[in-house]
């Protein structure tokens, strides 16, 4: 082979390999470690307590490394991420996953740590609460939707029979059953909304329902009504899902570096009952920015507005401490101790101030009290680099403080997360939905007392086909549909009667089972509910709803706004998809042998006949 050919072949091979590598993996823009380190330094210099942004950047780099199989480097990035922001929970769980892949027992440690941190972090708590609230609402709405769908499939044929019968008699309508279905479904389309659909289904199917179905329908409608009624109350906690709320801004200021934009935002936001907290947050930011006088002013303002809170006293002491005014600092810390003796940070800082004023005994006692009050946990919640350089610690708000703040702020103003979600999904504001559903429930309960059974369609006691008083036959001592009546018409012997009815019953039931199977297989749980298996039907429907919500949301319904965008892990698709497949399998494979029958006894029918002249005349005519 000539050298030219060899060179050409080598060039082509190289080009192909390069193209393949580029095609297979186009790396994302890598973070420069120097840039991140510089940013971290800036933030720490500006007094940041925790560095969630930089932690996320590290976390993203770790994910990238995991993707490329470099697990050791990824682990280092994850540990760095935890060091930068101990409350950033994703790092713990990813570390647990990495350790689990190595079958290391450390996986359990990291997992437990992740769970513990999740329970302590306000951000994790609020994200979990908001998502859980919306997810539960969606799961409930889908499950109850399946319940209503099952009731529609079961009882609309009864209504369609009665309506079709009337259309046939009154107008001699062609295809009366199809006409009846069109008329029945038309109201659902005028205002397509969940409460109106529920109300319509309740009103028209309640008289036909069995006791168990009524109980389930009542609970379903009642739960919706409760949810709709209490949605505005739940909305009071909406500030947790609103980054523009004062609570969210204070939460940012709690741990962030000095940020004039954030300070301006907090100052510009109406206090909404959080005057002291607003001043405190501004004080914290001013303190981190080195604006001592302003910080003192803010903390004094906060103390003036709420003297029962130790946090501004501690931070006021911190400002004096950092200025070298240890006596004044000591005064601030002692005042904080008076307000809240269990303030761990206050006690620790008091101990440091005692050291500076050479009161060693008092210092050791204060340190002991600090330790008893749980200082270690608070200490560990700060960024590793920050806590190593501090002699005293800033007193910041905890998760329970933010929940209180959210509730207080929500009483004045909120974005109405739950109401908005409910309105989006149901199509009607919650309170209006409440009124509609409750009115429908009451009307159904009242109506069922007054609606005469004679007016309702029912099932043939032999074949189970739908019939009504206008078309049924009770000539053989039992209520039979028109077709069964025709089959046994003129038959006198019991033996033949039974044989005929048995044959018809078998042929009709086989056909109906097939049609029910096809109609009810599309949504899991419908078949169980259709056949009266309320509990198992609700369980299957709930499982399907949960998996569907999980599949569509792939992690979060309300996404984390203070987060980078990550590609969804495969398991977040596969697990819910498997759940959906499983629920469909249960729905398709389940054998429902026994159908609940809405039949009518002969005596009842005859009694009713006497009170219904038209029905009687119709029967006579036939």
């Amino acid at each position, binding site marked *: 082979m000539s050298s030219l050919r060899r060179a050409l072949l080598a060039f082509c091979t190289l080009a192909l390999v390069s193209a393949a590598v580029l095609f297979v993996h186009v790396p*994302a*823009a*890598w*973070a*420069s470690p120097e*840039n*991140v380190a*510089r*940013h971290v330094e800036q933030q720490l210099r500006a007094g940041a307590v925790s560095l969630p*942004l*930089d932690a996320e*950047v590290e976390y*993203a780099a770790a994910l990238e490394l995991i993707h490329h199989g470099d697990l050791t480097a990824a682990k280092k990035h994850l540990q760095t991420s935890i060091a930068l922001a101990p409350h950033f929970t994703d790092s713990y769980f990813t570390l647990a996953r990495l350790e689990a892949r190595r079958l290391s027992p450390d996986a359990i440690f990291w997992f437990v740590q992740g769970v513990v941190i999740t329970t302590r972090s306000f951000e994790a708590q609020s994200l979990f609460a908001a998502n859980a609230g919306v997810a539960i609402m*969606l799961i409930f709405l889908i499950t109850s939707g399946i319940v209503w769908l099952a009731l529609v499939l079961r009882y609309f044929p009864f209504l369609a029979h009665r309506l079709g019968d009337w*259309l*046939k008699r009154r107008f*001699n*309508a*062609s*295809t*009366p059953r*199809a*006409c009846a279905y*069109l*008329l029945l479904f*038309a109201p*659902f*389309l005028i*205002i*397509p*909304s969940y409460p109106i659909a529920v109300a319509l289904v309740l009103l028209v199917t309640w008289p036909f329902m069995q006791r168990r179905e009524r109980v389930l329908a009542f609970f379903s409608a009642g739960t919706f009504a409760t949810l709709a009624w209490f949605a505005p109350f739940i909305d009071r906690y909406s500030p947790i899902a*609103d*980054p*523009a709320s004062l609570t969210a801004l204070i939460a940012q200021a709690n741990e962030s570096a000095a940020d004039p934009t954030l300070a301006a935002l907090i100052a510009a936001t109406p206090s909404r009952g959080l005057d002291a907290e607003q001043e405190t947050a501004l004080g914290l930011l001013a303190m981190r920015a080195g604006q001592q006088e302003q910080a003192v002013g803010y903390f004094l303002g906060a103390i003036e507005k709420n003297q029962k809170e130790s946090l501004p006293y501690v931070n006021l002491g911190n400002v004096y401490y950092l200025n070298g005014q240890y006596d004044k600092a000591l005064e601030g810390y002692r005042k904080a101790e008076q307000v809240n003796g269990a303030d761990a940070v206050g006690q620790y800082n008091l101990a440091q101030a005692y050291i500076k004023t050479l009161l060693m005994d008092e210092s050791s006692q204060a340190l002991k009290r600090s330790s008893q009050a749980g200082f270690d946990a608070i200490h560990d919640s700060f960024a590793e680099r920050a806590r190593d350089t501090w002699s005293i610690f800033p007193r910041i708000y905890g998760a329970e403080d933010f929940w209180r703040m959210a509730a207080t702020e929500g009483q004045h103003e909120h974005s*109405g*997360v739950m109401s*908005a*979600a409910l*309105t*989006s999904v149901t199509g009607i504001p919650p309170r209006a939905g409440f009124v509609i559903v409750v009115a429908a429930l009451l009307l159904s309960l009242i109506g069922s007392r007054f609606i005469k059974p004679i007016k309702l369609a029912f099932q043939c006691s032999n074949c189970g086909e739908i019939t009504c008083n206008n078309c049924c036959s009770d000539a053989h001592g039992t209520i039979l549909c028109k077709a069964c009546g025709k*089959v046994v018409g*003129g*038959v*006198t*012997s019991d*033996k*033949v009667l039974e*044989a*005929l009815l*048995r044959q*018809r019953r078998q042929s009709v039931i086989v056909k109906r089972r097939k049609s029910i199977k096809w109609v009810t297989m599309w949504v899991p749980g419908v078949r169980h509910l259709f056949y009266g298996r309320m509990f198992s039907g609700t369980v299957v429907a709930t499982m399907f709803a949960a998996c569907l919500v999980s599949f569509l949301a792939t992690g979060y*319904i*309300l*996404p984390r*706004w*203070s*987060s*980078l*965008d990550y*590609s969804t892990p495969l398991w977040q698709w596969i697990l819910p998809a498997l759940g959906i497949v499983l629920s469909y399998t249960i729905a398709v494979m389940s054998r429902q042998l026994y159908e609940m029958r809405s039949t009518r006894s002969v005596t009842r029918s005859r009694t009713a006949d006497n009170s219904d002249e038209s029905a009687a005349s119709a029967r006579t005519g036939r």
Partner: protein
Amino acid sequence: MALEGNLNSFGLEEILQLIAVQQKTGMLSVTINEKTTVLFFRDGKIISTRDRRSKTRDPFREYLMRYGVLSREELVRLTQIGTQSKLDLLDILTSEKFLDEKMLARQWRYHIQEALHDVLTWDQCSYKFISGDEIVGGVKSLGEHIVEPLLMECMRRIDEYPMLREMFPAEGIRIGPTGREVNPEAEMFESEKNVLAMLKTPRAVRDVVSRAKMPAFDTYEALRLLKDKGLIMIEADVAERDDAPGASASARARRQHGNPLIMGGCVIVFAACAFVGAMHDADRAAAMARSGILATDAAHRARVEYHVRWLIEAYRSRNGFYPTDLGELWKSGIADSDTEQSASALELRYKLTSDRQTYTLL
């Protein structure tokens, strides 16, 4: 044990007599060409001709149909019940009292007599007798008949039948009353009375046969006796029977189909409701599909804005500077397409200051 052969070895009469004398229980099947008749015996007596292994052909049903023992409506009903109930014909007949017991027993006997008569007229046939109680185990019967009298009657019929057919050579010939009064003292059989009652107006022979409720031979015999008595006479051949007129079928069909305007009205109502609903809720559904269920939340914009700010800060942390525009942010791989779409939907505007140290996002 099976006994089989054809008429060259033993005559059918001899076989029948043998079975009767020996009081055998079993099944005798006689075949000519592809036609088979079956006779069931119990202790030498004929109990049935109905081989229910062959579901398609029931000789007793054919008999009842052929001679008008049951009316057309009754036969339709009988067939319907049989099909739907899967009960045996004899069970239905006895249970439903289509015929009284006496009449049913008589018709059963007539039917067996005719079946035997039929078989004995076959020239070249083969036979096979299978004995055993299990053969007749499930065979239903309305009466057992001794072979000898039946055989004797058959012989008589075989002798007389050609003469009768000579008298009434075609089934289409018309027979009518002569108008002569019936002598009350003259003895008349029941069959004669029946046939005479049918012939108050002229009828074709086949018409009489098919309604006489007795075997053809008995009808022909009754006709002969009546003719001999001068009570009936042969008129002429008649054409095919009149068919029922199909008057006003189209009108009935129209009545059955019903009024199509109602269906049209219902479709219009349904479409109108769907249209109103679509107009009313299309925007909401589109918004929900576009931005999720929390799109109407007042904080939606704040969340998206905050998220974009977070990404911008992450970009800065990575690269040391802010992006020049949002497009650069999207291209960097920090943000995904959902964020880009949300930001575009909310028309977020990003502007970097000249020193690239701060930015505005509105």
